[in-house]
Protein backbone atom coordinates (compact mmCIF):
# COMPACT_ATOMS: atom_id res chain seq x y z
CA UNK A 1 0.00 0.00 0.00
CA UNK A 2 1.39 3.37 -0.96
CA UNK A 3 1.65 6.47 1.21
CA UNK A 4 -1.50 8.05 -0.17
CA UNK A 5 -3.52 4.97 0.67
CA UNK A 6 -2.18 4.99 4.19
CA UNK A 7 -2.99 8.62 4.46
CA UNK A 8 -6.52 8.04 3.22
CA UNK A 9 -7.07 5.19 5.63
CA UNK A 10 -5.98 7.22 8.60
CA UNK A 11 -8.18 10.11 7.55
CA UNK A 12 -11.03 7.61 7.44
CA UNK A 13 -10.18 6.61 10.95
CA UNK A 14 -10.20 10.19 12.02
CA UNK A 15 -13.79 10.48 10.88
CA UNK A 16 -15.13 7.56 12.83
CA UNK A 17 -17.57 8.00 15.64
CA UNK A 18 -17.70 5.58 18.47
CA UNK A 19 -20.37 3.18 17.28
CA UNK A 20 -20.35 0.27 19.65
CA UNK A 21 -22.54 -1.90 17.46
CA UNK A 22 -20.06 -1.65 14.62
CA UNK A 23 -16.96 -2.40 16.63
CA UNK A 24 -17.84 -5.57 18.43
CA UNK A 25 -15.40 -6.39 21.21
CA UNK A 26 -13.54 -9.61 20.50
CA UNK A 27 -12.65 -10.14 24.14
CA UNK A 28 -13.23 -8.47 27.52
CA UNK A 29 -12.15 -4.90 27.30
CA UNK A 30 -13.31 -1.36 27.91
CA UNK A 31 -16.34 -0.55 25.79
CA UNK A 32 -16.19 2.34 23.34
CA UNK A 33 -17.15 5.68 24.86
CA UNK A 34 -20.48 7.21 23.95
CA UNK A 35 -19.97 10.89 23.46
CA UNK A 36 -22.76 13.17 24.63
CA UNK A 37 -23.29 16.84 25.43
CA UNK A 38 -24.14 17.40 29.06
CA UNK A 39 -27.06 19.42 30.38
CA UNK A 40 -27.56 21.30 33.62
CA UNK A 41 -29.97 20.72 36.49
CA UNK A 42 -31.99 23.51 38.10
CA UNK A 43 -29.65 26.12 39.64
CA UNK A 44 -28.92 25.50 43.31
CA UNK A 45 -28.53 28.30 45.88
CA UNK A 46 -24.76 27.87 45.98
CA UNK A 47 -24.28 28.14 42.24
CA UNK A 48 -22.20 31.10 41.30
CA UNK A 49 -21.69 33.01 38.05
CA UNK A 50 -18.26 34.45 37.32
CA UNK A 51 -17.73 36.85 34.46
CA UNK A 52 -14.31 36.65 32.82
CA UNK A 53 -13.70 39.85 30.87
CA UNK A 54 -11.04 38.18 28.72
CA UNK A 55 -8.31 40.72 29.49
CA UNK A 56 -6.26 42.09 27.97
CA UNK A 57 -8.27 41.85 24.75
CA UNK A 58 -11.80 42.01 26.23
CA UNK A 59 -13.19 41.17 22.78
CA UNK A 60 -14.66 37.88 23.97
CA UNK A 61 -16.22 37.69 27.42
CA UNK A 62 -16.94 34.40 29.14
CA UNK A 63 -19.39 33.45 31.86
CA UNK A 64 -18.44 30.58 34.15
CA UNK A 65 -21.23 28.67 35.84
CA UNK A 66 -19.81 27.06 38.96
CA UNK A 67 -21.32 24.88 41.65
CA UNK A 68 -19.99 26.54 44.77
CA UNK A 69 -20.78 23.52 46.93
CA UNK A 70 -18.46 21.22 45.01
CA UNK A 71 -16.32 23.92 43.39
CA UNK A 72 -16.74 22.40 39.96
CA UNK A 73 -17.22 24.13 36.63
CA UNK A 74 -20.68 23.29 35.26
CA UNK A 75 -20.47 25.13 31.98
CA UNK A 76 -19.72 28.40 30.27
CA UNK A 77 -21.40 30.97 28.07
CA UNK A 78 -19.51 32.89 25.40
CA UNK A 79 -19.96 36.59 24.86
CA UNK A 80 -18.57 39.54 22.98
CA UNK A 81 -16.84 42.82 23.70
CA UNK A 82 -17.20 43.66 27.40
CA UNK A 83 -20.42 41.67 27.74
CA UNK A 84 -22.60 41.58 30.80
CA UNK A 85 -24.63 38.65 32.17
CA UNK A 86 -28.11 38.21 33.62
CA UNK A 87 -30.33 35.29 34.50
CA UNK A 88 -34.11 35.07 34.32
CA UNK A 89 -35.77 35.10 37.77
CA UNK A 90 -37.37 31.72 37.00
CA UNK A 91 -33.91 30.38 35.99
CA UNK A 92 -35.15 29.17 32.63
CA UNK A 93 -33.02 31.47 30.52
CA UNK A 94 -29.66 33.16 30.74
CA UNK A 95 -28.68 36.34 28.94
CA UNK A 96 -25.44 37.75 27.67
CA UNK A 97 -25.65 41.40 26.72
CA UNK A 98 -23.07 41.71 23.98
CA UNK A 99 -21.34 44.08 21.62
CA UNK A 100 -19.87 42.69 18.41
CA UNK A 101 -17.99 44.30 15.58
CA UNK A 102 -18.35 42.65 12.20
CA UNK A 103 -14.56 42.34 12.07
CA UNK A 104 -13.86 42.06 15.83
CA UNK A 105 -12.07 45.43 16.04
CA UNK A 106 -13.44 47.25 12.97
CA UNK A 107 -16.57 47.28 10.85
CA UNK A 108 -20.13 47.57 12.03
CA UNK A 109 -21.01 47.56 15.70
CA UNK A 110 -23.98 45.42 16.70
CA UNK A 111 -25.33 45.18 20.23
CA UNK A 112 -27.51 42.21 21.08
CA UNK A 113 -29.08 40.39 23.95
CA UNK A 114 -28.15 36.73 23.45
CA UNK A 115 -30.66 34.35 24.98
CA UNK A 116 -29.56 30.91 26.21
CA UNK A 117 -31.55 27.99 27.50
CA UNK A 118 -30.42 27.58 31.12
CA UNK A 119 -30.58 23.77 30.99
CA UNK A 120 -28.77 23.08 27.72
CA UNK A 121 -26.85 26.37 27.49
CA UNK A 122 -27.79 26.34 23.83
CA UNK A 123 -28.05 29.69 22.13
CA UNK A 124 -31.73 30.36 21.50
CA UNK A 125 -32.16 33.78 19.95
CA UNK A 126 -30.76 37.26 19.86
CA UNK A 127 -32.54 40.57 20.25
CA UNK A 128 -30.77 43.46 18.58
CA UNK A 129 -30.63 46.65 20.62
CA UNK A 130 -29.30 50.12 19.78
CA UNK A 131 -25.48 50.01 19.58
CA UNK A 132 -25.16 52.28 22.60
CA UNK A 133 -24.66 50.03 25.60
CA UNK A 134 -22.11 51.21 28.14
CA UNK A 135 -18.72 49.77 27.28
CA UNK A 136 -16.79 49.53 30.49
CA UNK A 137 -14.75 47.07 32.50
CA UNK A 138 -17.71 44.83 33.41
CA UNK A 139 -20.08 46.20 36.05
CA UNK A 140 -23.09 44.28 37.34
CA UNK A 141 -25.70 47.01 37.05
CA UNK A 142 -25.13 48.06 33.47
CA UNK A 143 -27.99 45.63 32.78
CA UNK A 144 -30.87 44.21 34.81
CA UNK A 145 -33.93 42.00 34.49
CA UNK A 146 -37.18 43.07 36.13
CA UNK A 147 -38.36 40.92 39.02
CA UNK A 148 -41.05 39.26 36.91
CA UNK A 149 -38.58 38.46 34.14
CA UNK A 150 -40.53 40.43 31.56
CA UNK A 151 -38.12 43.23 30.68
CA UNK A 152 -34.37 43.34 30.32
CA UNK A 153 -32.89 46.81 30.77
CA UNK A 154 -29.62 47.89 29.22
CA UNK A 155 -27.85 51.07 30.35
CA UNK A 156 -26.49 53.15 27.47
CA UNK A 157 -23.84 55.84 27.22
CA UNK A 158 -22.92 57.66 24.03
CA UNK A 159 -21.89 59.68 26.29
CA UNK A 160 -25.58 60.69 26.60
CA UNK A 161 -27.20 58.33 29.06
CA UNK A 162 -30.32 56.28 28.41
CA UNK A 163 -31.78 52.83 28.97
CA UNK A 164 -32.82 50.36 26.30
CA UNK A 165 -35.82 48.19 27.11
CA UNK A 166 -36.11 44.65 25.76
CA UNK A 167 -39.32 42.70 26.07
CA UNK A 168 -38.02 39.22 26.90
CA UNK A 169 -41.41 37.59 26.38
CA UNK A 170 -41.84 39.05 22.90
CA UNK A 171 -38.09 38.86 22.34
CA UNK A 172 -37.88 42.33 20.93
CA UNK A 173 -36.46 45.75 21.64
CA UNK A 174 -39.33 48.00 22.64
CA UNK A 175 -37.75 51.39 23.23
CA UNK A 176 -35.22 53.69 24.78
CA UNK A 177 -35.71 55.87 27.84
CA UNK A 178 -33.56 58.96 28.43
CA UNK A 179 -31.95 59.14 31.87
CA UNK A 180 -30.02 62.42 31.64
CA UNK A 181 -27.22 62.62 34.19
CA UNK A 182 -28.09 59.21 35.63
CA UNK A 183 -26.59 55.83 34.79
CA UNK A 184 -26.94 52.09 35.42
CA UNK A 185 -30.08 50.09 36.11
CA UNK A 186 -31.23 48.63 39.41
CA UNK A 187 -34.49 46.75 38.86
CA UNK A 188 -35.96 45.34 42.05
CA UNK A 189 -39.56 45.60 40.87
CA UNK A 190 -41.62 44.54 37.89
CA UNK A 191 -42.39 47.88 36.28
CA UNK A 192 -39.63 50.21 37.38
CA UNK A 193 -35.92 50.73 37.53
CA UNK A 194 -33.55 53.06 39.37
CA UNK A 195 -30.44 54.83 38.09
CA UNK A 196 -27.66 56.56 40.01
CA UNK A 197 -27.26 60.25 39.33
CA UNK A 198 -24.20 62.49 39.33
CA UNK A 199 -25.43 64.50 42.32
CA UNK A 200 -25.92 61.48 44.58
CA UNK A 201 -29.61 61.20 43.80
CA UNK A 202 -31.56 58.27 42.44
CA UNK A 203 -33.76 58.46 39.37
CA UNK A 204 -36.75 56.13 39.54
CA UNK A 205 -38.46 55.36 36.24
CA UNK A 206 -41.85 53.68 36.26
CA UNK A 207 -42.70 51.58 33.22
CA UNK A 208 -46.02 50.77 31.65
CA UNK A 209 -46.89 47.29 30.45
CA UNK A 210 -45.27 47.96 27.10
CA UNK A 211 -41.95 48.92 28.65
CA UNK A 212 -42.34 52.65 28.00
CA UNK A 213 -41.60 55.27 30.66
CA UNK A 214 -44.78 56.23 32.54
CA UNK A 215 -43.16 58.32 35.22
CA UNK A 216 -39.73 59.59 36.23
CA UNK A 217 -38.83 60.85 39.69
CA UNK A 218 -35.37 62.00 40.64
CA UNK A 219 -34.94 61.72 44.40
CA UNK A 220 -32.87 64.20 46.36
CA UNK A 221 -29.19 63.36 46.83
CA UNK A 222 -28.78 60.44 49.22
CA UNK A 223 -25.06 61.01 49.64
CA UNK A 224 -22.50 63.60 48.58
CA UNK A 225 -20.23 62.32 45.82
CA UNK A 226 -17.89 65.22 46.42
CA UNK A 227 -17.34 64.27 50.03
CA UNK A 228 -17.65 60.52 50.07
CA UNK A 229 -18.81 58.82 46.87
CA UNK A 230 -20.46 55.42 47.14
CA UNK A 231 -19.14 52.60 45.00
CA UNK A 232 -21.37 52.19 41.95
CA UNK A 233 -21.92 48.47 42.43
CA UNK A 234 -24.30 48.02 45.33
CA UNK A 235 -25.45 44.62 46.52
CA UNK A 236 -29.05 44.47 45.33
CA UNK A 237 -31.18 41.95 47.21
CA UNK A 238 -34.91 42.00 46.72
CA UNK A 239 -35.99 45.63 46.67
CA UNK A 240 -33.02 46.86 48.67
CA UNK A 241 -29.73 48.24 47.44
CA UNK A 242 -26.78 48.12 49.86
CA UNK A 243 -24.21 50.77 49.00
CA UNK A 244 -20.83 51.26 50.63
CA UNK A 245 -18.82 54.47 50.24
CA UNK A 246 -15.10 55.09 49.65
CA UNK A 247 -14.85 55.92 53.36
CA UNK A 248 -16.95 53.05 54.64
CA UNK A 249 -20.45 54.48 55.05
CA UNK A 250 -23.31 52.07 54.48
CA UNK A 251 -26.38 53.44 52.68
CA UNK A 252 -29.33 51.10 52.34
CA UNK A 253 -31.97 52.28 49.88
CA UNK A 254 -35.38 50.76 49.47
CA UNK A 255 -36.13 50.96 45.76
CA UNK A 256 -39.64 49.54 45.86
CA UNK A 257 -41.53 52.83 45.71
CA UNK A 258 -41.90 55.53 43.12
CA UNK A 259 -39.00 57.24 44.84
CA UNK A 260 -36.07 55.63 46.68
CA UNK A 261 -36.19 55.67 50.47
CA UNK A 262 -32.99 55.73 52.50
CA UNK A 263 -32.40 54.12 55.87
CA UNK A 264 -30.12 56.01 58.26
CA UNK A 265 -26.52 55.71 57.17
CA UNK A 266 -23.90 54.05 59.34
CA UNK A 267 -20.22 53.25 59.10
CA UNK A 268 -18.34 49.96 58.84
CA UNK A 269 -15.50 51.55 60.79
CA UNK A 270 -15.52 51.37 64.53
CA UNK A 271 -13.08 52.57 67.13
CA UNK A 272 -9.63 51.24 66.27
CA UNK A 273 -10.44 50.66 62.60
CA UNK A 274 -8.68 53.79 61.47
CA UNK A 275 -6.88 53.37 58.13
CA UNK A 276 -9.17 50.60 56.92
CA UNK A 277 -11.26 51.22 53.83
CA UNK A 278 -13.54 49.36 51.47
CA UNK A 279 -11.93 48.69 48.12
CA UNK A 280 -11.84 46.55 45.01
CA UNK A 281 -14.42 46.08 42.28
CA UNK A 282 -17.52 44.48 43.81
CA UNK A 283 -16.88 45.70 47.33
CA UNK A 284 -20.11 44.79 49.06
CA UNK A 285 -22.40 41.75 49.28
CA UNK A 286 -25.51 40.99 51.28
CA UNK A 287 -27.72 38.10 52.32
CA UNK A 288 -31.12 39.49 53.26
CA UNK A 289 -32.49 36.29 54.73
CA UNK A 290 -29.68 36.13 57.27
CA UNK A 291 -29.54 39.91 57.56
CA UNK A 292 -25.82 40.07 56.93
CA UNK A 293 -23.57 42.36 54.91
CA UNK A 294 -20.03 41.58 53.74
CA UNK A 295 -17.57 44.36 52.85
CA UNK A 296 -14.16 43.91 51.20
CA UNK A 297 -11.58 45.84 53.24
CA UNK A 298 -7.95 46.88 53.02
CA UNK A 299 -5.64 49.31 54.79
CA UNK A 300 -4.83 52.32 52.66
CA UNK A 301 -5.09 56.05 52.15
CA UNK A 302 -7.28 58.30 50.01
CA UNK A 303 -7.99 57.07 46.46
CA UNK A 304 -7.12 53.48 47.25
CA UNK A 305 -10.68 52.48 46.44
CA UNK A 306 -9.49 49.90 43.92
CA UNK A 307 -6.90 48.29 46.13
CA UNK A 308 -7.41 44.56 46.60
CA UNK A 309 -9.11 43.58 49.84
CA UNK A 310 -7.22 41.53 52.41
CA UNK A 311 -10.21 40.95 54.64
CA UNK A 312 -13.96 40.57 54.43
CA UNK A 313 -15.79 42.25 57.28
CA UNK A 314 -19.15 40.75 58.17
CA UNK A 315 -21.93 42.89 59.64
CA UNK A 316 -25.32 42.40 61.19
CA UNK A 317 -27.41 44.67 58.98
CA UNK A 318 -30.09 45.34 61.59
CA UNK A 319 -27.74 45.92 64.51
CA UNK A 320 -25.20 47.74 62.31
CA UNK A 321 -22.49 45.93 64.19
CA UNK A 322 -19.55 43.89 63.01
CA UNK A 323 -19.87 40.14 63.37
CA UNK A 324 -16.39 39.11 62.28
CA UNK A 325 -13.28 39.91 60.30
CA UNK A 326 -12.29 37.22 57.85
CA UNK A 327 -8.72 37.22 56.57
CA UNK A 328 -8.52 36.13 52.96
CA UNK A 329 -5.80 33.75 51.81
CA UNK A 330 -5.45 35.79 48.63
CA UNK A 331 -6.42 39.47 48.31
CA UNK A 332 -9.69 39.78 46.41
CA UNK A 333 -11.19 42.26 43.94
CA UNK A 334 -14.86 41.23 44.07
CA UNK A 335 -17.04 39.44 46.58
CA UNK A 336 -20.48 37.86 46.64
CA UNK A 337 -22.65 36.08 49.21
CA UNK A 338 -24.82 33.11 48.31
CA UNK A 339 -28.47 33.52 49.26
CA UNK A 340 -29.01 30.21 51.04
CA UNK A 341 -29.30 29.54 54.76
CA UNK A 342 -25.62 28.86 55.23
CA UNK A 343 -24.12 31.53 52.98
CA UNK A 344 -20.76 31.16 51.28
CA UNK A 345 -18.51 34.15 50.63
CA UNK A 346 -17.13 34.02 47.10
CA UNK A 347 -13.98 36.09 46.67
CA UNK A 348 -12.44 36.71 43.24
CA UNK A 349 -8.66 36.90 43.22
CA UNK A 350 -8.29 38.67 39.88
CA UNK A 351 -4.55 38.35 39.38
CA UNK A 352 -4.51 34.69 40.40
CA UNK A 353 -7.46 33.91 38.09
CA UNK A 354 -9.26 32.19 40.90
CA UNK A 355 -12.27 32.26 43.21
CA UNK A 356 -11.89 31.40 46.88
CA UNK A 357 -14.75 30.33 49.11
CA UNK A 358 -15.27 30.96 52.82
CA UNK A 359 -18.11 30.13 55.19
CA UNK A 360 -19.87 33.38 56.08
CA UNK A 361 -20.73 32.00 59.54
CA UNK A 362 -17.24 31.34 60.85
CA UNK A 363 -14.90 32.45 58.06
CA UNK A 364 -13.66 28.93 57.43
CA UNK A 365 -11.77 28.58 54.14
CA UNK A 366 -13.70 26.12 51.99
CA UNK A 367 -11.59 25.86 48.87
CA UNK A 368 -10.75 27.42 45.54
CA UNK A 369 -11.76 27.27 41.89
CA UNK A 370 -8.83 28.20 39.68
CA UNK A 371 -8.04 28.98 36.03
CA UNK A 372 -10.86 31.48 35.64
CA UNK A 373 -9.06 33.91 33.32
CA UNK A 374 -9.69 37.51 34.41
CA UNK A 375 -12.70 37.20 36.71
CA UNK A 376 -14.26 40.61 37.46
CA UNK A 377 -17.85 39.93 38.43
CA UNK A 378 -19.48 37.36 40.63
CA UNK A 379 -23.18 36.81 41.20
CA UNK A 380 -25.65 34.09 42.03
CA UNK A 381 -28.95 32.70 40.84
Amino acid at each position, binding site marked *: *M*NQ*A*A*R*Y*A*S*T*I*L*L*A*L*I*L*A*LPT*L*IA*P*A*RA*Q*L*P*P*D*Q*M*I*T*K*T*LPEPAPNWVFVL*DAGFPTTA*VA*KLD*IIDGSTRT*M*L*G*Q*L*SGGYLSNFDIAPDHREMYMIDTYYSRAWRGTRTDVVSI*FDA*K*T*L*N*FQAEVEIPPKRILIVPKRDTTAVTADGRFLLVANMTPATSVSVVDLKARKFVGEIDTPGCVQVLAPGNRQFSSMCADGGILTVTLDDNGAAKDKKQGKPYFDPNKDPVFDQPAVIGTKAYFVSYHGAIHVLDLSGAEAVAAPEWSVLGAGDSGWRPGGWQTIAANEKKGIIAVLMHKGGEWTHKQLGDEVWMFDAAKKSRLSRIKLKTPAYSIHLSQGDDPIIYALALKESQMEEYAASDGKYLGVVN*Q*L*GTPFLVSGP
Partner: protein
Amino acid sequence: MDKFFENLTRAVAQRSSRRSFLSYLGKMMLGASMLPLLPIDRVAATARAENKKPNLDDDTTCDYWKYCAVDGFLCSCCGGGSHDCPPGATPSPTSWVGTCRHPADGRDYIVSYRDCCGKTSCGRCLCANTISEMPLYRPQLDSDLIWCFGAPTMVYHCSTAEIVSVK
Protein backbone atom coordinates in the same frame (compact mmCIF):
# COMPACT_ATOMS: atom_id res chain seq x y z
CA MET B 1 -5.47 6.99 -4.39
CA ASP B 2 -5.16 10.76 -4.30
CA LYS B 3 -8.50 10.92 -6.01
CA PHE B 4 -10.01 8.76 -3.31
CA PHE B 5 -8.64 10.97 -0.58
CA GLU B 6 -9.87 14.02 -2.44
CA ASN B 7 -13.34 12.62 -2.86
CA LEU B 8 -13.58 11.63 0.74
CA THR B 9 -12.57 14.98 2.04
CA ARG B 10 -14.77 16.76 -0.46
CA ALA B 11 -17.70 14.70 0.69
CA VAL B 12 -16.98 15.72 4.22
CA ALA B 13 -16.73 19.33 3.21
CA GLN B 14 -20.04 19.20 1.41
CA ARG B 15 -21.81 17.51 4.22
CA SER B 16 -20.30 19.94 6.64
CA SER B 17 -22.34 22.69 5.13
CA ARG B 18 -25.50 21.03 6.28
CA ARG B 19 -26.64 20.85 9.85
CA SER B 20 -27.67 17.27 9.21
CA PHE B 21 -24.07 16.17 8.98
CA LEU B 22 -24.13 14.66 12.41
CA SER B 23 -27.08 12.47 11.62
CA TYR B 24 -25.30 11.18 8.52
CA LEU B 25 -22.43 9.91 10.60
CA GLY B 26 -24.65 7.39 12.30
CA LYS B 27 -25.11 5.72 8.94
CA MET B 28 -21.43 5.54 8.11
CA MET B 29 -20.34 1.93 8.00
CA LEU B 30 -16.61 2.26 8.17
CA GLY B 31 -14.99 -0.79 9.64
CA ALA B 32 -12.18 1.01 11.31
CA SER B 33 -10.60 -1.94 12.99
CA MET B 34 -10.28 -3.72 9.65
CA LEU B 35 -8.33 -0.94 8.00
CA PRO B 36 -4.57 -0.99 8.09
CA LEU B 37 -3.61 1.52 10.71
CA LEU B 38 -0.26 2.70 9.49
CA PRO B 39 1.28 5.03 10.33
CA ILE B 40 -0.58 4.99 13.61
CA ASP B 41 0.63 1.48 14.35
CA ARG B 42 4.19 2.55 14.09
CA VAL B 43 3.63 5.70 16.01
CA ALA B 44 1.83 3.90 18.78
CA ALA B 45 4.75 1.57 19.29
CA THR B 46 6.90 4.50 20.21
CA ALA B 47 4.13 6.14 22.14
CA ARG B 48 3.86 3.20 24.47
CA ALA B 49 7.53 3.38 25.28
CA GLU B 50 7.27 7.05 26.22
CA ASN B 51 4.04 6.94 28.13
CA LYS B 52 4.96 7.33 31.78
CA LYS B 53 2.70 6.35 34.70
CA PRO B 54 -0.71 7.37 33.41
CA ASN B 55 -3.40 7.65 36.08
CA LEU B 56 -6.74 5.90 36.02
CA ASP B 57 -8.67 8.03 38.46
CA ASP B 58 -8.57 11.70 37.66
CA ASP B 59 -9.76 12.75 34.22
CA THR B 60 -9.09 16.42 35.03
CA THR B 61 -5.32 15.92 34.86
CA CYS B 62 -3.10 15.71 31.79
CA ASP B 63 -1.70 12.31 32.75
CA TYR B 64 -5.07 10.53 32.77
CA TRP B 65 -4.48 7.40 30.70
CA LYS B 66 -6.76 8.27 27.76
CA TYR B 67 -5.09 11.67 27.29
CA CYS B 68 -1.74 10.36 25.98
CA ALA B 69 -2.03 12.50 22.86
CA VAL B 70 -4.52 15.16 23.94
CA ASP B 71 -3.74 18.77 23.09
CA GLY B 72 -6.00 21.50 24.38
CA PHE B 73 -8.31 22.36 27.27
CA LEU B 74 -9.80 19.31 28.93
CA CYS B 75 -13.59 19.26 28.67
CA SER B 76 -13.56 17.52 32.06
CA CYS B 77 -12.60 20.88 33.58
CA CYS B 78 -15.19 22.83 31.60
CA GLY B 79 -18.48 21.21 32.53
CA GLY B 80 -18.07 18.17 30.29
CA GLY B 81 -16.32 14.88 30.84
CA SER B 82 -13.45 12.91 29.41
CA HIS B 83 -15.75 11.98 26.53
CA ASP B 84 -18.58 14.47 27.04
CA CYS B 85 -19.03 18.00 25.80
CA PRO B 86 -19.92 20.74 28.26
CA PRO B 87 -23.48 22.06 28.01
CA GLY B 88 -24.09 24.03 24.83
CA ALA B 89 -20.99 22.78 23.01
CA THR B 90 -21.18 20.54 19.96
CA PRO B 91 -19.10 17.40 19.60
CA SER B 92 -17.08 17.60 16.41
CA PRO B 93 -17.79 14.74 14.02
CA THR B 94 -14.10 14.77 13.09
CA SER B 95 -11.03 14.23 15.23
CA TRP B 96 -7.42 13.36 15.48
CA VAL B 97 -6.44 9.98 16.85
CA GLY B 98 -3.97 8.34 19.14
CA THR B 99 -3.27 5.03 20.82
CA CYS B 100 -3.03 4.81 24.58
CA ARG B 101 -2.17 1.79 26.69
CA HIS B 102 -4.50 1.16 29.61
CA PRO B 103 -2.26 0.79 32.64
CA ALA B 104 -4.44 -1.87 34.28
CA ASP B 105 -5.54 -4.20 31.47
CA GLY B 106 -2.38 -3.63 29.43
CA ARG B 107 -4.30 -3.24 26.20
CA ASP B 108 -3.81 -0.52 23.64
CA TYR B 109 -6.89 1.47 22.79
CA ILE B 110 -7.51 3.63 19.76
CA VAL B 111 -8.57 6.98 21.14
CA SER B 112 -10.40 9.61 19.17
CA TYR B 113 -9.60 13.14 20.36
CA ARG B 114 -12.76 15.01 19.54
CA ASP B 115 -13.05 18.71 20.07
CA CYS B 116 -16.19 20.29 21.48
CA CYS B 117 -17.02 23.28 19.31
CA GLY B 118 -19.20 26.34 19.06
CA LYS B 119 -18.01 28.23 22.15
CA THR B 120 -14.84 30.16 22.77
CA SER B 121 -11.93 28.44 24.48
CA CYS B 122 -12.73 27.04 27.90
CA GLY B 123 -9.31 28.10 29.12
CA ARG B 124 -8.93 25.47 31.85
CA CYS B 125 -6.68 22.40 32.20
CA LEU B 126 -4.47 22.95 29.19
CA CYS B 127 -2.66 19.77 28.22
CA ALA B 128 -0.13 19.41 25.43
CA ASN B 129 0.65 15.73 25.21
CA THR B 130 2.57 15.15 22.02
CA ILE B 131 2.96 11.42 21.85
CA SER B 132 2.51 10.31 18.23
CA GLU B 133 1.79 13.87 17.14
CA MET B 134 2.79 14.67 13.57
CA PRO B 135 3.20 17.87 11.52
CA LEU B 136 0.49 19.55 9.51
CA TYR B 137 1.19 17.51 6.36
CA ARG B 138 -0.17 14.56 8.34
CA PRO B 139 -3.29 16.39 9.51
CA GLN B 140 -5.03 13.39 11.01
CA LEU B 141 -2.26 13.26 13.60
CA ASP B 142 -1.92 17.01 14.05
CA SER B 143 -3.51 18.17 17.26
CA ASP B 144 -2.80 21.88 16.64
CA LEU B 145 -5.55 22.04 14.05
CA ILE B 146 -9.00 23.20 15.06
CA TRP B 147 -10.73 19.86 14.80
CA CYS B 148 -14.22 21.24 14.33
CA PHE B 149 -14.66 20.19 10.70
CA GLY B 150 -18.32 19.36 10.29
CA ALA B 151 -19.42 21.16 13.46
CA PRO B 152 -21.74 24.19 13.21
CA THR B 153 -18.81 26.57 13.76
CA MET B 154 -15.04 26.18 13.73
CA VAL B 155 -14.76 27.83 17.13
CA TYR B 156 -12.82 25.58 19.53
CA HIS B 157 -14.05 25.11 23.10
CA CYS B 158 -12.33 22.05 24.63
CA SER B 159 -10.99 18.57 23.95
CA THR B 160 -12.20 15.07 24.79
CA ALA B 161 -10.74 11.58 24.54
CA GLU B 162 -13.07 8.84 23.43
CA ILE B 163 -12.23 5.16 23.32
CA VAL B 164 -13.02 3.93 19.80
CA SER B 165 -11.87 0.34 20.10
CA VAL B 166 -9.17 -1.88 21.43
CA LYS B 167 -6.37 -2.33 18.97
